């Protein structure tokens, strides 16, 4: 079922997709950011897909991927945990986007057809901006505000792109990998 989903997106938008894969049963399409709005509208309105439910919008900062601290004493144990019989290991994860620091990740679900799809939109560090989905789903409003707050990725066409969890005077974007986890900033409240 996941494959049929991926195919229908790939057939409809031959130029939009950079890749598509299924990993651990999650169908995923990697998209150029120019075509995000178009593909999202197609997902929502196409009668065969009817992805009417925007589950989640988030982002991942891939700038430190695979550069974590080395194990304390022993060499890496190789990590390959035996997969269970239900989930075949034949599917392999293609890895983070090649030359983009951020990936904005969307999860969609279809209440009618009960299938899920993930869209990954790589976004370079120099111009961290993608199109806003608020015109299609009002629920995207707060989710995108959170991504802006935590990652500093802007959403073009968003009606009210303010910080949401942090306060306006907060400097930096906390979930970026170059934001130190133990950094402290004085809490300065808004002046009103």
């Amino acid at each position, binding site marked *: 079922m996941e494959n049929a989903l991926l195919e229908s997106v790939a057939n409809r938008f031959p130029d939009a997709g950079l890749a598509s894969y299924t990993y651990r049963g999650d169908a995923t399409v990697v998209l150029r950011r120019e075509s995000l709005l178009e593909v999202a509208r197609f997902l929502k309105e196409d009668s065969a897909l009817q992805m009417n439910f925007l589950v*989640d919008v988030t982002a*991942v900062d891939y700038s430190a991927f695979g550069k*974590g601290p*080395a194990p304390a*004493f022993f060499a890496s144990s190789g990590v390959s945990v035996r997969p269970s019989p*239900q989930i075949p290991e034949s599917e392999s994860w293609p890895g983070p986007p090649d030359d983009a620091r951020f990936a904005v990740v969307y999860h969609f679900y279809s*209440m009618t057809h009960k299938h899920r799809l*993930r869209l990954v939109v790589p976004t370079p560090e120099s111009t961290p901006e993608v199109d806003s989905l608020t015109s299609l789903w009002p629920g995207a409003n707060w989710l995108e505000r959170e991504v802006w707050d935590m990652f500093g990725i802007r959403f073009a066409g968003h009606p*009210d792109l303010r910080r949401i969890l*942090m306060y306006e005077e907060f400097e930096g974007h906390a979930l970026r990998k170059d934001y130190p986890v133990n950094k402290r900033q004085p809490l300065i409240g808004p002046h009103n």
Partner: protein
Amino acid sequence: MAMQKSPMVETSSISEPDAAGLETRDMMLNIGPAHPAMHGIIRIIAKLEGEQIEAADVEIGYLHRAFEKMSETVDYNGVVPYTDRLNYVSPLINNMGYCMAVEKLLGISVPERCHYVRVIMSEISRVSDHLTCVGATAMELGAFTVFLYMIKAREYLWELVEKVTGARLTVTYCRVGGVKADLPEGFAEACSEAFKETRKVLEESSALLTRNRIFADRMNDTGAISAEDAISFGITGPFLRATGATYDVRKDCPYAVYDQIPFEVPVGTRGDNMDRYLVRMEEMEQSMRIVETALEQIPGGPVLVNPETGRPIPAAEMVDLAKVGNIDAISGGCAVVGPTLEGSGRLYHPSIATDEKRAVFPAKEDTYGNIEGLMRQFKLVMHGHGVRPPNGEAYFPVEGANGELGFYVVSDGAGNAYRVRVRPPCFAIMSALSMLLEGEMIADMVPTFGSVNMIGGELDR
């Protein structure tokens, strides 16, 4: 970077004088962050015309504790205590959701009995969550008795939780690849006893509320939302089901053993506060039935068949014997640990945890008693080792008490997660709150906000 100002902040204005020569003035009312009706801490800036809310701006983030950032700094099992503090009224569901997401990423599955244990515990949590929500809403509408009754019922359920996990609130019960320990002896009886009391409370509360004129007048037709609007805002859970949409993760994308347990999904028709109340009341009954069915169906483990225990040796003594190399004295022994760890011994282990050695702690007897067990424990707790899923990403949704609770985990093969994202169910509902409040009377804000069941820990993370 210049931040856009809230559109709400400077809109207090004086309108043109009307025909009678009177001028009206919009009033800005600041509700919260510290306000008895704002469960936890959020702030609503309401623009009022008389008693009617013209516009409302909802400000959240007062309880932000950087859950997602902290999750990147500790090992995979170390995140579990943090998940307790997301929805702190039903922490077992968070535990389960997070662990299942990591298990999906690892590609492992847990034994069936473990699934049942998790389902039982999360349904008990769901009942206690709904009790809190309905009780608090009723209290804010003046029905203090109901609140006390429901907290009393929650107490019975938390006693069950305490029996199993050793804690009432911050349970940390699930582990990647299993649960901490098996159910204690006599749990089924304790459950039926607690449910008897809970059902009594539900009956009493329903008698006090459902046909109560004051309660019904304030709940009926307030805070109404249509199914289309609710879906477009990403609302799930009882809030969505009150509108008539039937989406329930347990039914539509069944996980664990929910597909083997018959239960009904109650839905409303009008999507107002009354329907949300009724849906929650019915869901509690359904959750209790799920637990009862699950306790009947749960595959036999040592707990329910009176364990054929080995020679009991107190754990501390076992450690001492092992340290001096007296392995003969402890081989065939069974570690006696604290009451809430009783079900973690070798006897119980195969039924509550997967046999994947790279993800699951060994039984206590093995840790103390043989070098393989000790090494395995060591490899899992040492910094930089631990559970190490292969590179990849996985999203796993479970049905939280407020709706779809999803965990999106990205791994780069290290001992700590590269990224953990929670999809908090009440975030979506809160984003629709200003739309829900617009046009309502200010007094209706209380039941509407109450039925959102905002949980600060989950909303702000």
